[in-house]
């Protein structure tokens, strides 16, 4: 059997514990993101059926919800206003935005996690990934 971990300094008991802590942290972060977004999406969807009883029987209502050009908020002020008025679409969108933000948060938190581990190489690697993510987001807006 070959030595798999590589005989580098710092691969002690202490650092193994820290690696496990980081894995648990990332796992918990993903779980929290998923549960939070799921709650918003489910509550919003439930509200939309509560507010519009015709959604249960009308066969013409669907087109108005899913055809291209259907109005729904996609700017921050609209969404905030919508959530304040308990509008179902805005609540669902908050859930979807939480879902989209979860992987980005995961990368950001990993940077701190690697710094905590004292793993400089991986802290740099993860910082580069986050920068590229932000860059593609900014560039994507202009396309």
């Amino acid at each position, binding site marked *: *059997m*070959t030595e*798999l*971990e*590589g005989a*580098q300094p710092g691969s002690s008991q202490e650092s193994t514990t820290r690696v496990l802590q980081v*894995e648990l942290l*990332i*796992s*918990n972060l*993903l*779980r929290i*993101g*998923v549960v939070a*977004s*799921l709650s918003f*999406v*489910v509550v*919003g*969807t439930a509200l939309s*059926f509560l507010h519009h009883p015709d*959604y*249960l029987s*009308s*066969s013409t*209502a*669907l087109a108005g*919800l*899913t*055809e291209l050009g*259907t109005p*729904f908020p*996609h*700017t921050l002020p609209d969404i905030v206003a919508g959530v304040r008025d308990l509008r179902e679409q805005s609540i*669902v*969108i908050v*859930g*979807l935005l939480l*879902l*989209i*933000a*979860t*992987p980005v948060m*995961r*990368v950001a938190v*990993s940077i701190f996690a690697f710094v905590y581990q004292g793993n400089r*190489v*991986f802290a740099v*690697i*993860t910082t580069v*990934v986050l920068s*590229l*993510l932000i*860059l*593609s*987001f900014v*560039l*994507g*807006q202009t*396309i």
Partner: protein
Amino acid sequence: MTPLQFTLFVLLISVGAGVLGSLLGLGGGIIVIPALTLLFKIDIHYAIGASIVSVIATSSGAAAAYVREGMTNLRVAMVLEIATTSGALTGAYLAGRFSDRWLYVIFAVVMAYSSLMMFRKRRQIAVGLTKSAPWADFLRLHGSYYDQALGKEINYRVVSTRIGLGLMYIAGIVSGLLGIGSGALKVTAMDLAMGLPIKVSSATSNFMIGVTAAASAGVFFMRGDIDPFVAAPVATGVLVGATVGSRLLGRLDSSTIRIVFIAVLLFIAAQMMLKGVLG
């Protein structure tokens, strides 16, 4: 069809997409997009918007469990994410400069060839590669995972990190150009080139696809391509499916996963070939 029926049907299909996606390291777009456009006549823009949401849902839903179980190789994922994100940037820059039809044909051939290569090594579990791997040694990418089906810890060595990075860069370009999750390419690269066990490849790909999709999802959202009424049942169903699927991966036989993956690869290849030929 009433909105309620729509929500329930889409929910059900999305649960299936989530299970399959979490097992194979794919985003579920191959199920969600055709289902929404063909069965429910949803506009392709909203279908792609919902599929991006589905990729993130599969990724985060399954990764929570895979990371905790030590199935995901976090180090490999972080290193390769540099290549996928810069590839996605390049792809977005190149978009419109290439004929999409040729790209579809090329990737159909690549997928078909990969499925053949995978079929050849379908019985292998861990590759006891003795090839030297200076990059993987330096970055300490080698790892191990507990295989529930075999009831023992499997050690594996990671090789060809640079080739892996190159392939991931190409996978990133493809997702930037064609708007597909490219989980299939990621799993193939890790499995065939880098020597990761199929379960680790799948879990690690799962972990990675969410990050690439998140960048495009933000843009899609601002463009108004993510319709909450379409995306809500997709997100809910896929999250539930991915959670179920992530409990299955460890218990399933590696060769079973490989066979299902090969079948899905061939299906994607056929889909892409059709798009390329018919335009």
